[in-house]
C-alpha cells in the first residue's frame, strides 16, 4: 500500500517537474491594473499573440492597488515578468533599485511617438513602453444644451469665465467638478492645476516644477493655483460648491451635464471619462449629445499645450517570451485591438485611425499626434510622497478654504524631503 502511494507520488512529482520544465519557457506573467471592459479588451489584444507564438500569457488583474502589490513582490524577489506601471515616479524608483529590465535594443519603439519614448526612458535608457494614452486637456459639454441657450465654445480663458458668468446669470451652474476618487481623491484637481500651469507658465517652467527646480512657493506655481481658484473657489460656479467638488465621485460628475435641465454645463476631464458617460447614460451619441472642446489657452505666448497620461508597461525579467510579448504590445497590430476596443489613443504611429470607435476619440488622437507641446501628468512624474501625497491633499485643503500660502508651504516642505535635497 505504502509502496504504491510512494510510486504515485513519485510519478506525480516527475510529471510536474517535466511540466514545469516544458512550460516554464512558454509562459509569461503580466500584472495589470485594468478590470472590466478594459481587462476584456486587453485579453482580446493578446489572442493573436498567443495563437501565433504558442506562449501562454498569464494575466494577473491585480487592480488599482498594483503599485502596492509591486512593492511587496519586488521586495520579496518575486515580481511578475511584466507589469503595468501607472505611476512613472514608481517606475523611476524601481529602475534606480535595478529591479527593471533596460529595454534598449530589446523592444522596437521606432514607430512610437517620440514624446512617449522619452517619457518611458529614465536617464536616456528605455525602461518601459507605452501602449496607449489619454488626453486630458478636454472640456466636455452638451452641444444640444449649448445650442439651445446660445452658448458658444470658448477659445480663451476670459471667454471661459465670460461663459461661466453667463451661465450663472441664466440661473445655471457652469461646472461639474467632482474630485472624489477613493484612496486617490485629489487627482482631478491636480490635473486642473497642471493644465493651467502649462498654459500660464509654459512647458519649460512646467518641467522645472516637475523636477523641483523651482519651489512650490514660486510665483508661477502660485499663479496656476489661483487660476484654478477662479473656478473652484466660487460656490456658484461648481455643482454642489466646494462640498460637491470634494465629495462627488469623479465618474458620476459628468452625469450632471445630461439631466434636464442640466445641473451643470461643462466638465474638464480626460478622454477616459467617456466610458463613464456611456455606462451611466447608455442612449447618448458621441459628437451629438456630448462633445469636447480643448481646454482654452491662457497666455498667448504658450498657446495650447496638451496634457495627458499613458498606459505604461515595464519588465522585471528578461526572457525571450517577455521580449516577444513587449514587441507585440508595442506593435500597431496589438494597439489597434486594444485602443479600438476602448477608445484609448494609440502610441504606435502606424495604427489605422479608422479603428477609433467615435469621432471624439479620433479627434483626440489627431490632436495628440499633431500637438506642438505635450506634457505628461506632472503628479504622476513627481516622487509619490508629493505627486500622490501632498499635492493631492494640498488641492483638497485649498478647496476646503485653507490659505494658498499655507498649502504651498506644506507641499514645499514635503517636496524638499521627498526629492532628497
Amino acid at each position, binding site marked *: 500500500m505504502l509502496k504504491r502511494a510512494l510510486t504515485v507520488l513519485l510519478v506525480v512529482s516527475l510529471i510536474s517537474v517535466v511540466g514545469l520544465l516544458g512550460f516554464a519557457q512558454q509562459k509569461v506573467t503580466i500584472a495589470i491594473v485594468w478590470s472590466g471592459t478594459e481587462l476584456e479588451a486587453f485579453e482580446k489584444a493578446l489572442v493573436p499573440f498567443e495563437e501565433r507564438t504558442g506562449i501562454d500569457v498569464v494575466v494577473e488583474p491585480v487592480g488599482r*492597488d498594483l*503599485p*502596492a502589490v509591486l*512593492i*511587496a513582490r519586488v521586495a520579496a524577489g518575486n515580481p511578475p515578468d511584466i507589469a503595468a506601471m501607472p505611476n512613472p515616479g*514608481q517606475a523611476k*524608483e524601481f529602475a534606480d*533599485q535595478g529591479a527593471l529590465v533596460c529595454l534598449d535594443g530589446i523592444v522596437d519603439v521606432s514607430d512610437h511617438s517620440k514624446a512617449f519614448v522619452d517619457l518611458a526612458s529614465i536617464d536616456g535608457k528605455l525602461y518601459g513602453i507605452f501602449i496607449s494614452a489619454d488626453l486630458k486637456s478636454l472640456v466636455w459639454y452638451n452641444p444640444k444644451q449649448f445650442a439651445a441657450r446660445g452658448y458658444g465654445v470658448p477659445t480663451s480663458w476670459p471667454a471661459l469665465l465670460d461663459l461661466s458668468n453667463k451661465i450663472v446669470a441664466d440661473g445655471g451652474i457652469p461646472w461639474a467638478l467632482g474630485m472624489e476618487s*477613493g*484612496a486617490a*481623491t*485629489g487627482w482631478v484637481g491636480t490635473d486642473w492645476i497642471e493644465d493651467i500651469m502649462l498654459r500660464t507658465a509654459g512647458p519649460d517652467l512646467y518641467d522645472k516644477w516637475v523636477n523641483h527646480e523651482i519651489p512650490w512657493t514660486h510665483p508661477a506655481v502660485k499663479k496656476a493655483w489661483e487660476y484654478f481658484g477662479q473656478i473652484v473657489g466660487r460656490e456658484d460656479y461648481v*455643482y*454642489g*460648491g466646494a*462640498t*460637491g467638488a*470634494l*465629495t*462627488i465621485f469623479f465618474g458620476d460628475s459628468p452625469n450632471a451635464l445630461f439631466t434636464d435641465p442640466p*445641473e451643470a454645463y461643462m466638465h474638464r476631464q480626460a478622454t477616459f471619462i467617456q466610458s463613464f458617460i456611456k455606462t451611466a447614460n447608455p442612449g447618448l451619441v458621441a459628437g451629438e449629445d456630448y462633445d469636447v472642446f480643448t481646454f482654452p489657452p491662457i497666455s498667448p505666448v504658450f498657446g495650447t499645450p496638451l496634457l495627458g497620461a499613458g498606459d505604461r508597461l515595464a519588465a522585471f525579467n528578461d526572457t525571450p517570451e517577455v521580449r516577444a510579448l513587449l514587441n507585440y504590445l508595442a506593435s500597431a497590430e496589438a494597439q489597434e485591438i486594444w485602443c479600438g476596443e476602448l477608445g484609448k489613443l494609440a502610441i504606435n504611429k502606424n495604427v489605422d485611425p479608422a479603428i477609433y470607435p467615435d469621432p471624439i476619440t479620433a479627434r483626440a488622437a489627431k490632436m495628440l499626434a499633431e500637438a506642438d507641446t505635450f506634457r505628461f501628468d506632472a503628479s504622476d512624474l513627481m*516622487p*509619490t*510622497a508629493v505627486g*500622490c*501625497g501632498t499635492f*493631492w*491633499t494640498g488641492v*483638497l485643503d485649498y478647496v*476646503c478654504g485653507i490659505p494658498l500660502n499655507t498649502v504651498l508651504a*506644506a507641499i514645499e516642505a514635503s517636496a524638499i524631503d*521627498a526629492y532628497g535635497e
Partner: protein
Amino acid sequence: MRTGRLQPWLFVGPALILLVFFLLYPSIDTIRLSFLDKRAENFVGFSNYTHFFTDKTTLTAFRNNALWVVLFTTFSVSFGLALAVLLDRVRYEKIVKSIIFIPMAISMVGASTIWKFVYAFRPAGAPQIGLLNAIVTACGGRPMGWLIEMPWINNLCLIVVGIWINTGFCMVILSAAYKNIPRELMEAARIDGANEWQVFRKVILPLLKPTVAVVTTTMVVFVLKIFDIVYVMTNGNFSTEVIANRMYKEMFHFMNFGRSSAIAVILLLLIIPALIINVRRFTEQEAIR
C-alpha cells in the same frame, strides 16, 4: 522524569517556532528598519521618529487615534453593556441580539462602503442618494458633506461606523458574562429593597468588572490599529488620518521603508500596555475560575 521535562516543549515547540518566524523576527526586523532610510540602506538614527513627532499629518493621526480610543471604546463597551443587561428582559432577545451582531459578520471594508453611501452628498435640489442627507433634507435642512466637515464631524462619522460594527461583539461577550451571574444575588438585593439602578450599580457591575475590563482592553487594542474604515471612507483626508493608515501610505504609496517601520514600532509601543493589562486580567480571571 525526563519525559516530563521534554513534554511541554514538544507541545509548545511548534507554536514557539511559528511565533519566532512570523512575529518575533518581523518585529525585530521592523525595529531595525525604523533606524534606516527610505530604501533601508543607510543608518539615519532617530530621524524617522523625530519626523513622526514633528510632521503635521502624523500628529493629526496621533490625535485622531486618541479620539478613536476614547470615543469608540467608551461607546462600544457601554452600548454593549446596556444591551446585554436590558435585552435579558426582552422576549425577543435572541432575534434582537442577532440583528445587532450582524454588522460584525460584514467585512470592515463592506461596512465602510455601506456607510460611505449613508453619508453621500448631493447638492441641494438633487435627489439625495445618501440616507443621512435624505433625512436631513426631508426635515427641511440643507445637505451636508459629512465626511469633509473637519475636524470633528467627519471623525465622529467614522467612529460611529466602528461603534456600529463592534457594539454587537461587546454585547455578546458581556451578555454571556451577565448570564453567568447567579440570579439569587440580584433577587436578594431586590428583596433587601434595592431598586433596579442600585442592583445594576452594586451587584451586576462589580461582578461584570473583569469581563468589562477584558472587553475594554480588547477594544483598545483593536482600535489603536484602526485602518479599514478610514482607508475606505476618507483615506485620511480632511484631518481624519490615523496611525495605521499613515503607515500603509508611507510603505505602499511612498515606498518609505524607514518611516513606515518607525510608525509600526510606535504603534506597537502604544499597544503593549493595553496588551499587558489584557493578559493580566485574563490570567486573573482564569485564577478565579
